[in-house]
C-alpha cells in the first residue's frame, strides 16, 4: 500500500531528512517535481509534509471535511484516498458528545452483569491477553444520507462517513469467556466514557463473533482521542454506533436491553413499515474517481475506480455501467479482505465528448446485489443504493 514510485521520487535509504530540509527547498532530494512541491505553500496544519524523521515523499494533503466541531463530525477524504487504509489523522469522526480526555494509566474496563466473575481490566492487563489484528472498516449508519430524497434528518454525509484501519485488540468473546458469561445472556451493553455515556446493546451472537474486538491499536499506534483512545469496540460490518468509543463498561443482560441508541435512534423508521434496528449495513460501492461533476479528457481511455464493501459477506464482484449501458465487470484489486473495503478499477474505451453518467454496483459472496433504490427512512440510515457520477468529457 505504499505509494508507487516512492524510490524514484528520491528516497535514499539510510539517510534521514528532516522537515526543515524539505522546507528549505528539498536539499538532498532528487526529482524536480518534488522540489517544486516542497517549495509550494505549506498548509497551516502541516499536512502534506512527510512525517517528521522519515523519508517518505510528500503526499497530497489529505483533509477531512468538518461538518461540526462540538461534537466533532468530520468526513474522510474518500475521493482522494488511494489505498485500503485510512490514515489515522483523516479517519472519519461521528461523535455524540465532546471527546473525553482519558488518562490511559487510570483507565479501566469493567465487565459485569450476568457473568460468573465480574472483573475490571487495566490497559496493561488487556494488552497482556492474546490479541488479534483485523483490517476493518467502520461505517456510520448515516453514511450516504445526502442521497436521500426528500432530505432525511441528520448530518448530510456523502460517502465520507466510512474509514478503514488495522485494528488490534482482544476479541470481545475472550473477555466474556474470562468472566464466565451466563448461558442466558442475550445482550452485551457497551458503554463509553464520553459525557453522554453513549451505550448500545450488542446481541449475543455478534458479541461472541471472534472478529468483534476490544481494540487498543489503530494502524499500529494508539487510537486517536477522537476515535476512542485508549480503547474502543470494533463491531465489524455494523453501523458505527455499535463500535462504542472510549469503552469503559461491558454489561451482560439476560433480558433484551431497551435503550436510546437501540430503540429511539439507529432504528429504520419508514412510515407504514415495521421499525427495525440498524445492524449490519448492506453491500455497497461508489466511484471515487473520476469525481462527480469533474471534467475528463476526450479521446483517451477513462479509468474508473472506487471502493466496495458489504456488512453481510465478502465482496465478489463490482460492475460499472456507462450512460445506462450494460454492466461491465471491474477488476478487484488485491488484497480482497473480508472486512476491508475492496479497491476496484475498470478502464473504459475513450468516451465520446459530452455528458457521461457512470454507475457502480457491487455484489457480495452471499449473492446480495447493491440495489437501485432503497426505502426512505426518517433518519436516513443505511443508504446503500447505486449512485451515479456525472462527468463532462471534453
Amino acid at each position, binding site marked *: 500500500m505504499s505509494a508507487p514510485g516512492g524510490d524514484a521520487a528520491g528516497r535514499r535509504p539510510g539517510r534521514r531528512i528532516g522537515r526543515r530540509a524539505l522546507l528549505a527547498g528539498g536539499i538532498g532530494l532528487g526529482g524536480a517535481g518534488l522540489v517544486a512541491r516542497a517549495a509550494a505553500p505549506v498548509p497551516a496544519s502541516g499536512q502534506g509534509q512527510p512525517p517528521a524523521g522519515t523519508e517518505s515523499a510528500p503526499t497530497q494533503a489529505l483533509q477531512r471535511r468538518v461538518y461540526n466541531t462540538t461534537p466533532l463530525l468530520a468526513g474522510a477524504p474518500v475521493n482522494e484516498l488511494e489505498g485500503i487504509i485510512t490514515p489515522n489523522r483523516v479517519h472519519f469522526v461521528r461523535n455524540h458528545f465532546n471527546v473525553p480526555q482519558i488518562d490511559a494509566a487510570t483507565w479501566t474496563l469493567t465487565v459485569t452483569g450476568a457473568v460468573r466473575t465480574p472483573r475490571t481490566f487495566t490497559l496493561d492487563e488487556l494488552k497482556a491477553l492474546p490479541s488479534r489484528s483485523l483490517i476493518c472498516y467502520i461505517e456510520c449508519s448515516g453514511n450516504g444520507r445526502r442521497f436521500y430524497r426528500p432530505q432525511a434528518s441528520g448530518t448530510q454525509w456523502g460517502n465520507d462517513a466510512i474509514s478503514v484501519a488495522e485494528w488490534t485488540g482482544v476479541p470481545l468473546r475472550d473477555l466474556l469467556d474470562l468472566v464466565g458469561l451466563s448461558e442466558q445472556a442475550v*445482550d452485551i451493553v457497551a458503554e463509553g466514557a464520553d*459525557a453522554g455515556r453513549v451505550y448500545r446493546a450488542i446481541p449475543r451472537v455478534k458479541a461472541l463473533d471472534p472478529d468483534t474486538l476490544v481494540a487498543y491499536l489503530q494502524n499500529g499506534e494508539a487510537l486517536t482521542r477522537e476515535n476512542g483512545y485508549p480503547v474502543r469496540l470494533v463491531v465489524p460490518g455494523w453501523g458505527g454506533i455499535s463500535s462504542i468509543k472510549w469503552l469503559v463498561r461491558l454489561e451482560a443482560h439476560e433480558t433484551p436491553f*431497551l435503550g436510546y441508541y437501540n430503540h429511539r435512534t439507529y432504528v429504520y423508521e419508514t*412510515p*407504514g413499515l415495521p421499525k427495525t434496528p440498524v445492524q*449490519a449495513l*448492506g453491500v455497497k460501492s461508489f466511484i471515487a474517481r473520476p469525481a462527480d461533476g469533474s471534467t475528463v479528457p476526450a479521446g483517451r481511455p477513462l479509468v474508473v475506480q472506487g471502493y466496495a464493501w458489504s456488512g*453481510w459477506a465478502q465482496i465478489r464482484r463490482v460492475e460499472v455501467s456507462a450512460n445506462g449501458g450494460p454492466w461491465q465487470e471491474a477488476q478487484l484489486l488485491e488484497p480482497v479482505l473480508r472486512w476491508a473495503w475492496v479497491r476496484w478499477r475498470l478502464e473504459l474505451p475513450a468516451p465520446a465528448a459530452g455528458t457521461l453518467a457512470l454507475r457502480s454496483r457491487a455484489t457480495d459472496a452471499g449473492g446480495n446485489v447493491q440495489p437501485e433504490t432503497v426505502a*426512505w427512512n426518517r433518519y436516513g440510515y443505511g443508504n446503500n443504493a447505486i449512485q451515479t457520477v456525472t462527468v463532462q468529457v471534453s
Partner: protein
Amino acid sequence: MKSRRIIRGLVLPAALATAITGAMAGARLAVGAFATQDGPPGSVAAGASVYAATCAECHGDRLDGAGRFGRFPPLVGRHTVPDYPNARVLYEYIRRAMPYNRPGSLSDEEALSVTAYLLNQNGLLPDDGTLAFEELDGFALPGADPIAPPLPGAPEEPQTVTPGSSQAGPASGP
C-alpha cells in the same frame, strides 16, 4: 421539613434557583430536597422546578428548543418525547446524558421528576401525576408502536424495503 416549608414560601426566579442549586451542589441530599420543594420525587411539580433550574437554559421555558444558546432539541410534540418506546428509555437517557454541559449530574430522583414533567408537558401524565421508578418499564409511549407512523417530510409514495438494501438485512437482535 422546616427548611423545605421556608423555601416553598419563596417565589424563586429561575436564575436564583440555579444559583442555589449550584451552591448546594456539594451536598447531594440537599439538592434533592430542594428539587422536591413542590412535590415528592417523581411528581410533575418537582420535575417542573428541576426543569426550570437545569434544562430550560437550553431547551427553553416553553420546551420548544429556543433557549439562551440558540436551537436545541424541542421536548414537546409528537416527534420528541412521545417517540420514545417507554418512560424507562427516556429516563435512562436523561440520567446518563443530560444536561448536555454536565451529563450525569442529576440525581436519580431529579431525573425521574424531569421525566414526569416531560411526560406531563406532552399530555401523557396529569398535572398532579407522579411517576415511580417501578413504573418506568411499564409506562409505554407512542414510540413503542412497532410500525413507524406517518411523518411530515416523508415521501408521498408508499415505500418498500428493496432486496439488497441495508434495511432488508436479517436482524439478529434488538
